[in-house]
């Protein structure tokens, strides 16, 4: 079995790069930022700081991106689908999306905020929302904004940029996080997205366990599909892990694991154009039919039906 998996990988040259931090590459110079926390990019100095990225293959990002397009036009390849965005638009791309900018018009003017999971987790916690990579994975939001909203966001952006570039002071990270909080609430309002509220106490150890479980889940979906493995890695009992998950998401640990596997399968089918047998093999299912049955049990449709529906 492991033999055949390697063969599979050799036949398929990877079409995307997984978990490469494209935003902190050496040739990318952010307008402002603190490494591993927040990066800001804008075109106000006359050059596009993300220009060196145009030849990179599609990349799976693990940061959340808020992209405010003021002028010009840009075409994204998001999870294998082309999306063209024109002026005055807000694009929010959540972690786990596979993206690439395929075409950028020369007159482009934008500003964007990239936040790393550590910060975005905290922001979501502070404004009282549940945040999880798995739940929001493969999600993105594109909404046109009016001039006033854009000015409002630009004002917050310039405030953040000035302070990030300026000298350090005692509560600087907190100050910047406060501004990012208000930015996040405004983004949610613009998209009119109805987020899942946070149930229970967000300052507890339980919430910590929940967040760590979800990040572990993102890493080990393929190899490990038992609640027991995750519970043991976290050093708690399976029952307690399930209880904690139910507290914060009304979904137990095994449902989370199932959903993560389905997300991965969907990404393989849609983005990498794997066949069903390849997908089931790389997810380490014994047979295609058992994979099909699993897929149908969770989503209600078979993988083939799903593929037909998506390709329409």
């Amino acid at each position: 079995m492991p033999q055949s998996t390697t063969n599979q990988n050799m036949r398929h040259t990877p079409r995307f790069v997984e978990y490469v931090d494209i935003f902190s590459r050496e040739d990318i110079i952010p307008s402002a930022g603190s490494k591993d926390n927040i990066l800001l990019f804008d075109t106000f100095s006359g050059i596009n700081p993300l220009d060196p990225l145009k030849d990179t293959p599609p990349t799976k990002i693990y940061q959340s991106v808020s992209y405010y397009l003021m002028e010009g036009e840009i075409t994204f390849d998001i999870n294998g689908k082309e999306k063209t965005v024109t002026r005055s638009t807000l694009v929010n791309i959540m972690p786990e999306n596979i993206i690439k900018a395929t075409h950028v018009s020369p007159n482009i003017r934008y500003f964007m905020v990239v936040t790393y999971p550590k910060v975005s987790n905290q922001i979501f916690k502070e404004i009282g929302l549940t945040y999880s990579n798995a739940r929001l994975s493969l999600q993105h939001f594109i909404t046109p904004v009016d001039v006033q909203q854009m000015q409002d966001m630009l004002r917050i952006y310039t405030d953040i940029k000035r302070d990030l570039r300026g000298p350090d002071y005692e509560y600087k990270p907190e100050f910047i996080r406060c501004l990012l909080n208000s930015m996040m609430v405004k983004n949610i309002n613009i998209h009119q997205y109805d987020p899942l509220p946070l149930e229970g106490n967000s300052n507890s150890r339980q919430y910590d366990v929940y967040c760590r479980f979800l990040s572990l889940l993102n890493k080990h979906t393929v190899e490990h599909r038992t609640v027991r493995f995750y519970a043991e890695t976290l050093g708690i009992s399976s029952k307690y892990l399930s209880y904690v998950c139910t507290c914060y998401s009304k979904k137990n640990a095994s449902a989370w694991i199932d959903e993560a596997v389905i997300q991965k399968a969907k990404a393989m089918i849609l983005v990498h154009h794997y066949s069903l047998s390849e997908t089931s093999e790389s997810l380490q299912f014994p047979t295609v039919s058992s994979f099909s049955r699993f897929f149908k049990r969770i989503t209600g449709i078979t993988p083939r039906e799903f593929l037909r529906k998506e390709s329409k």
Partner: protein
Amino acid sequence: MILKGDLITKADAQSAFFSSYEGKYTLMDNLDERGEPIIHARKEIYNSEYVYVTVVLRGTLHLIVSGTRIELKANEHLTVTPCMSVTIEESRCVFFCFLTSSYLMADIYKRTNVFNKLHYHAFKFRHIRLNPEKIAILLECYKRVKREHQQPDYPRKEVVLRAYQSAYVAKFFSLIEDTERVNYVTNSRQYALFNEFLKLLNQHHKTERSVQFYANKLGISPKYLSTIVFKFTGMTASQSIDQYVVYAIKQTLYNNEYNIKKVSVEYNFQSQSFFGRYFKRITGLSPNAYLKKNNIKSINFVQQKKEN
């Protein structure tokens, strides 16, 4: 005669800017006013609930905070914590000020990592002289809050207001240095005794609530203690103790995630009903009603979702 009530009301701001968001965040300023800015005198008001911040940009503001006369000059910043009374005298100045509920302030302090034991600072005010550059930075933070107040209502406005308020607090605590503090310490024996009393209160407020105990500890008669406390806080000793305890309880209730039973044990009450009666006698609200009225979680998304 001490009035209970809000430190800022709409009546004070005939020509100035005034805005209040559900009584939780209140702002007032006369930054845009042309001509001679005059602040009218106000009677003494006892403040049990709000953290009061005022900054003077030009002119002088005359105040009396719990018996201490303060002249707030240009580029000076004053923070008054709850459990103090404030009298405003007629003065001419350009200023801005805001009131924030102390329970919200506790939340703000928690998220900005400043400190979370707010009640240690009860009966105290902080008068700081800052240089004009720092004042300009704070003014900018204030204007950010003000601009958001002026916007028409939108969903989750309160989350944004709190975020901006937290930004102000984070900036403020980064800017200040202890050398800038204007000292009101006198060498009198009474002031020393009063400070000693506050220290004892800080240590023993969870178990002891009688004037006799504190007077014995200080080696003075209860009556003399009361006279001293009245001089510095405008309240008798027993009133001060009660106010302090209730203020501490409110903070603990918030930090303990609203567990009334736990708090009543922590503060050494014989039963929950004793605790409830004590709390109601001083605040006029039962602990449950107080929490219902001032629920932090209601600001967040949880409550709003349920209402819809």
